[in-house]
């Protein structure tokens, strides 16, 4: 099977303001460039989902110094950058589009809609990013738990990006 091409320079036609979408992808690029400079602008990636694995290539646009300086906060960058990777991933893997920010208490960060699905078939998206040694599987379990505890009872996707590893790991779990 061909590797899934997750392209941060073309993350999909999401329903977010273009500047906000570009911002998330730019932050992801800063994190990836810092951790995988020798492979820039593309790194091998493993998408883990439902017990299976799929190889992928994660591509980004090289950030300039101004962009690197603006995203020096590692924790914030890993969280916002993970959102950029998540948006590009759900688009490439399932044709999900981000439609709106989820409300506080819904258990999710974002609400998605799949191309061609019934108009009220909203899916929740909960995202996290890790830079360093934190356990990605533990983080994924936490995100799944947050989705299950949320007040909005709709299907969800929990997604965690482990930026530091090579290949980069994207852990995705569907929560019915």
């Amino acid at each position, binding site marked *: 099977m061909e590797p899934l091409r997750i392209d941060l320079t073309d993350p999909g036609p999401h329903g977010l303001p273009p500047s906000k979408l570009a911002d998330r992808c730019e932050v992801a690029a800063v994190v990836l460039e810092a951790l995988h400079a020798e492979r820039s602008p593309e790194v091998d990636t493993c998408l883990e989902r439902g017990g299976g694995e799929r190889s992928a290539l994660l591509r980004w646009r090289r950030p300039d110094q101004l962009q690197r300086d603006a995203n020096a906060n590692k924790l914030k960058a890993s969280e916002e950058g993970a959102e950029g990777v998540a948006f590009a991933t759900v688009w490439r893997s399932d044709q999900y589009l981000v439609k709106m920010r989820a409300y506080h208490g819904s258990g999710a960060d974002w609400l998605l809609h799949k191309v061609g699905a019934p108009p009220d078939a909203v899916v929740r998206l909960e995202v996290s990013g890790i830079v360093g040694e934190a356990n990605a599987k533990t983080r994924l379990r936490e995100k799944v738990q947050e989705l299950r505890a949320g007040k*909005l009872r709709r299907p969800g996707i929990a997604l965690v990006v482990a930026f530091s590893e090579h290949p980069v790991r994207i852990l995705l779990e569907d929560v019915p």
Partner: protein
Amino acid sequence: MSEPLDDPRLRQGSDLALDAEKAEADGDATGGRALYAQAAALYVAAARDLTSLPRLRAVLAVSGVCLAARGGRFDRAIEYAERFLAEPGSLDPEGAEELETLLRSYRRALPEKDPEAPAPPKEHLLYRSRQETRERAGRAAA
């Protein structure tokens, strides 16, 4: 026909909600609250115009009501929730239940009304006065 989730008011509302989060994170609580309230109005307007699809309408309605409350505008949150709940069948049962729960919670957050007292200006909400007290306390401590 355009999809309901492609309503430009939702995109604009999300934009404002993200700006509100950023303002809050940067320490501008007042600016953040104002942006949340604006985002709420857009979500609510989109929900009101959605006359079919009760499940989706409920998601938008609850989003708008929650954003208004996050902006400290419990008066508006209550007004929005009451208006949606006044249209039976326009929301799915789960969404209606969620709005009922929020309504009860926000009513508790507002000060008891003295029937003899003149109506207070809408800005004088419990949330705001608490927030201002906190801000004053913070300044005094500094």
